[in-house]
């Protein structure tokens, strides 16, 4: 019987591709306002009055171009969350993110849509839907998504911490 000397052969490929993606007029407006005013802004559809954050150029429901900018609150409400125990690389730092950590869907006061971002808290297992959070920006803003460091968990809502609803 012939001895099987076969071996797997591989073709090693290293991807080295880069793109310069235009952020578009709307996200450019968002970053410019964030950098200049340290405030989050959304875009509002003049038809359905929905406020989008992140801002979008066109309302998906009404197919209406949105040019109205709305200043939003510094705080928001957790409307969805998950606690992650599996270590991942933080794409903004390139380093592993310490586990466990909370990834939340944050509805900033004044917005109708939610941002997904990290919720910083001393006790991830005690974060609940409906809890309040506050936006934490880095000290020196650069006009990109890394300017939002995380959302600081504040705890369950109180009368004074409830954001104004439209």
């Amino acid at each position: 019987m012939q001895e099987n000397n076969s071996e797997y052969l591989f073709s090693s490929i290293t991807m080295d591709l880069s793109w310069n993606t235009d952020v578009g007029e709307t996200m450019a407006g968002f970053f410019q306002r964030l950098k200049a005013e340290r405030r989050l802004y959304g875009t509002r559809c003049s038809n359905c009055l929905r406020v989008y954050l992140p801002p979008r150029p066109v309302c998906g429901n009404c197919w209406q171009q949105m040019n109205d900018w709305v200043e939003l609150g510094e705080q928001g409400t957790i409307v969805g969350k998950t606690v992650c125990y599996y270590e991942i690389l933080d794409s903004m730092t390139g380093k592993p993110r310490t586990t466990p950590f909370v990834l939340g869907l944050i509805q900033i006061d004044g917005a109708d849509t939610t941002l997904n971002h990290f919720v910083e808290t001393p006790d991830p297992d005690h974060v609940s839907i409906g809890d309040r959070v506050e936006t934490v920006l880095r000290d020196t803003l650069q006009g990109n998504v890394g300017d939002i460091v995380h959302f600081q968990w504040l705890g369950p809502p109180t009368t004074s911490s409830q954001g104004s609803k439209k």
Partner: protein
Amino acid sequence: MVYRAVRACLDDASLTMPEIEAVVTASADLWDGKTASNIAITEAVGAVMKAETRISGDGLLALMHGAMMILSGHYQRVLVVAHGKCSEADVDAVSNWCFDPVYQQTLGVTDSQALSLQCQAIKMRAAEMTGEESIGALVRAPSWSDSCGLTVRQGDGACAVVIEAGDDGIVLEGFGYDLDAHYLGDRDLSRCDGLARAAKRAYEMAGLPDSQTDINRHYWSLRAALQLPPWAEAIGACSFIEGLATLPNERHQIQWSGLPPFAAGMQRLIAGVKDLRESPGSDRSLIHGCHGPAGQMQAVCLLHSDGGPC
């Protein structure tokens, strides 16, 4: 860019977005730098809460997909949108990644190299058939002599059209497409058998003979001027040598100023429709689209106008 194209399209058709039943888009992930290049345009094309499909290929394939949705009887009116933004990518690096990962990609082959190999093959075929070493010696049209060494620039662009069920106005009477072998060495690059098969399918669908004299204008998605003679041969418009000598002429429309990849076929379609609208009588045009190295994928659409309002 995409929103402006869709807006202009609906305004031209006197339609509103709620009247659109389904959306088909064409774009390429690698060129856009996204793993699903339709995610960034969902709102712009009005696809939220609609039947939406994305084709990773030339826009004419998206048009055919939309046409098949209508032919299925399930949809009456479909919006077709194509876009390409090669300005954001390193086209040579991206196109290298489109080749097979074991052989051609590893060699560093790019789209522009494939195009250059194709042009050389066309020149060699001309030399073998005529004994003339120079293409210029075969060319009779002065304008062709000046332009036969040109390549068509790739740029950014977005195109949108609405197609609907019916047989009035400008009718899409036939379409066909064909994917040739991927390996450059598996094909005779001086010919375009894939285009010949695509055209044959379109002609059969339209009930036309393969050798075409009834088509008044051809709208080409060329990357290089030298592709025109063998490709015109493939659709049955003329022989290769005749094409070398006489093309281009007014029957063969070329967008020398540039075409956006993946929106090119749709751009040619819109140009053809606009000309047909101004045509006073019965008229027929062939629209050509392609993508892939050295025109690996070929697509043909046949438009017919009875001269009525549209």
